[in-house]
């Protein structure tokens, strides 16, 4: 049963049911489409714990061998087990679980990407230069949009917000739509290559 042909056939049938259901009103196909989409959500639910299992493998090995900063691995696994246990007993609606979510997960997640504010400023200063027509156009448009976004722009010149809106709704819209159509065609082509069994990254599979 290792046959890749069978796997491609499964992929093909599931995709076909959904595509047919989109265009034709056939009762049993519609029912099948609803059913398999719900199957998909069940399999996806199970997949949510894959990362945790992976982390257990990597970090328990690191702790066993006392490799690198193994004490951080202890912290990682402890937090993971404790919060998971709380969640399974207390459910995600519980007060204890929400304490961890609101005071650890949320602030850390928020701070992780907040650092980008620093990095974008530093890159703006040290690297973003108008040394070609491309980058010159980009930086001018970016500056106008920034002045249209920040309230101080309106105080400097009341026209900045409307110029910003024009940039967003006319040239930006046109370019993004071109990219979107091209990207959409690319996505369909990728789907077809998968259905034809040419692209089999998901079947190639590898450890971890």
């Amino acid at each position, binding site marked *: 049963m290792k046959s890749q042909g069978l796997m491609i056939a499964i992929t093909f049938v599931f995709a076909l049911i959904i595509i047919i259901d989109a265009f034709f009103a056939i009762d049993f196909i519609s029912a099948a489409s609803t059913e398999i989409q719900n199957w998909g959500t069940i399999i996806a639910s*199970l997949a949510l714990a894959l990362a945790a299992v992976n982390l257990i493998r990597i970090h328990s090995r690191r702790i066993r061998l006392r490799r690198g900063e193994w004490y951080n691995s202890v912290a990682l696994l402890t937090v993971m087990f404790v919060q998971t246990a709380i*969640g399974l007993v207390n459910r995600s609606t519980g007060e204890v679980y929400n304490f961890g979510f609101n005071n*650890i997960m949320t602030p850390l997640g*928020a701070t992780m990407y907040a650092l980008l504010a620093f990095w974008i400023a530093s890159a703006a200063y040290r690297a973003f230069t108008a040394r070609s027509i491309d980058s010159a156009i980009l930086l001018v448009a970016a500056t106008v949009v920034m002045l249209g976004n920040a309230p101080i722009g309106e105080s400097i010149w009341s026209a900045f917000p409307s110029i910003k809106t024009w940039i967003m709704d006319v040239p930006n819209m046109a370019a993004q739509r071109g990219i979107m159509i091209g990207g959409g065609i690319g996505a369909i082509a990728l789907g077809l290559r*998968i259905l034809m069994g040419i692209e089999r990254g998901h079947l190639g599979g590898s*450890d971890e």
Partner: protein
Amino acid sequence: MIGTWLAAIGTLGLMSFAIKENPFYRFVEHVYVGIGAAHSVVMGWESLQTKAFTPIAESGDYIKLIPLLVGLLLYARFFKGKIWLSRYPMSILVGIGVGLTIKGTIGAQIVNQIRATLVPLTSINNIIIVLGVLSVLMFFYFTRKNTNALFNTSSRIGRYIMMIAFGALFGNAVMGRMSLMIGRVQFLLGEWLGLLG
């Protein structure tokens, strides 16, 4: 109170990365990865209760046992020599994903976008929009000779229009990223130190 302090220590721990990568940063980062993984497990479990256990136990919807069992095969990848088993649930997920992408994309991202571009060339804005969409499409037209003047000119225009779009993206990205830091500074100064009115 304890919660705010925990959050503040964690926030400062991650922010210390800006000064220098350091052991405290790495510790906090590990804690974050741990709690994030726990959240996925808990929400996955609850999603499973809603979607599989309840229908099976309460409504006798035994057909849901199929995805449940096939889905468990995802974990075969952790057993040497059994990795191939985990490709069955993947084929199902990919099949559904491809089906949804293909049928959704053609309407939402292709036909409806083209349809919305069918405007009369009676205003400057319409002309720019039409020119923009066409020239960007031609920029991404790859199988052609380098000497094709129509394509070369139009793809240069396409490139410039894209640069304006990237400028817009850039400007909004600055706002987004500053907002993220504003959130943290508001927390530190307000909730933690109580300096904001």
